[in-house]
């Protein structure tokens, strides 16, 4: 029963939504409004899950004094402190909460991704090799596209942006479209499997 009832809910709601897509009736609209209100009321509680999970992982590390456990204290202290500033002084611009976001969270978040520029440059030098005709085509296409994006490329030759545009609009388009049709069919199949109760992994383990 612990699995059957949730499954029945998914299947019933799922087919009601299939019907909703095709039937523009007021009952169908009322159903959507009801669903919206309920989803809105459920939505804030999902964050509790994230907090609990973080506390459990880092709490365990601290209590077992796992390697680098001191950093777990930093994580939890950061969490509590940031949340408290938001509750005490509010979340508007100019508050300590926004200061933390702007000067701590935001710079670190962008810098994490900026690191990748260094890695891709190092890989360009050490790993991108024209080992086969296919790899050569890949590299040549990449070089033309890279040059086509910057003013310098256009200044070298007007053919560079023209070739880059052609690569993107013809062979690239064909390849992305074929992959997308495949993915689209796969996603539809997965959705159908969920609707029909064949795919159940979202229920998690246990009975």
């Amino acid at each position: 029963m612990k699995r059957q009832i949730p499954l029945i809910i998914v299947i019933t709601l799922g087919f009601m939504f299939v019907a909703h897509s095709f039937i523009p009736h007021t009952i169908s609209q009322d159903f959507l409004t009801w669903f919206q209100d309920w989803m809105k009321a459920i939505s804030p509680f999902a964050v509790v899950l994230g907090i609990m999970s973080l506390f459990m992982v880092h709490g365990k590390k601290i209590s077992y004094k796992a390697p680098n456990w001191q950093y777990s204290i930093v994580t939890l202290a950061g969490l509590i402190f940031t949340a408290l500033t938001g509750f005490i002084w509010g979340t508007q611009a100019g508050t300590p909460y926004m200061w933390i976001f702007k000067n701590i969270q935001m710079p670190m978040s962008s810098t994490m991704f900026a690191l990748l520029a260094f890695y891709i440059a190092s890989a360009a030098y050490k790993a991108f090799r024209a080992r086969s005709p296919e790899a050569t085509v890949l590299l040549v296409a990449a070089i033309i596209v890279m040059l086509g994006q910057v003013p310098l490329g256009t200044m070298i030759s007007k053919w560079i942006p023209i070739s880059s545009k052609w690569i993107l609009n013809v062979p690239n388009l064909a390849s992305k479209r074929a992959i997308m049709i495949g993915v689209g069919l796969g996603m539809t199949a997965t959705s159908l499997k969920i609707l029909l109760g064949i795919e159940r992994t979202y229920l998690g383990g246990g009975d």
Partner: protein
Amino acid sequence: MNGKIIAFFDKMQKLDRRYIYLMVALSIIIPLVIPFNSPTFTSETTENIYRKIDSFAGDPTKAVLLSFSHDASTMPELFPMEVSVLRHCFERNVRIFTICWSPAAAPLMEHAINTAKENYDVTSGVDYVNFGYKPNSLFLPIVLGMGEDISEAIDTDSQGRKIKNLDIMKEIKNYDDMNLVIDFSGGGAALSWVTYARAKFGVNVAAGITAVMVADYYPYLQTGQLIGMFRGLKGAAEYEKMVDVFASYETDEYPNGRPFSKEVIKNVKVPITKSTIIYIEDGVEFDTGIPLNYKYKVARIGMNAQSVAHIMIIVFIILGNIGFFLTRKKDNL
């Protein structure tokens, strides 16, 4: 001699990666610190967004929705796009809404609005509304709900005000009026708008995306499911220039900006090393006297560094391959 060259490349092959990192950093720092003027060529994918927004100019029955589906990690690429679009709307009196789906996007959205509106006399609730942060689990209910009634689906704005009581909403009810959605993301978020809002209500969707996603979005451009696309930092740079050339233009004939023209954008240059907007056409300079703030040219300055860095990476690929083939030849001997 040959042996020496091979030995050199052999050594270069084993170069410590930290030297490469240093070169990457320098290739970006130098062009940023010593700025130079390079042309910005606009492309159709960006022009289409500009023209669509411009067609709403001064019309109280039309509006644009900006959806911020990203966090700070992709900000260098997406933020200049957002500021340019907001600036375009404020210049040309286009009503604009903003919304986001994750907590981390809320302050970025606020920051983009504040950055753009500093130089304009615009009021929240009249010229624009920030719908604020809505939990991601409400994405579909809200996207579908807005097809019927935006006020109902959104309910309250970022300041907790009831949307339906706001001035801006008087003549705007659903996607028939809010006929353009631009989603800014580093992933496939714009495609959700295509799948639901476009397919069900026929709304025009455009995407502001990081360059990583650009190649993947091309099929949607060809089918017309996307009316336009910002292609990474370059897209932002293109839009900055279009706003400078058309929306900021002020003469007796066009007191509030001039209409888009392909000829004009092709021929006019706007130097970024100057502190005012200057048009250079066929060698003739015209100084508008309008300040060209750093925040309005940040993407174009960035593109200078982008040029140098791309050339450097291409040189890396070529050098790496020469070394690879030479050392392989040596091993085969």
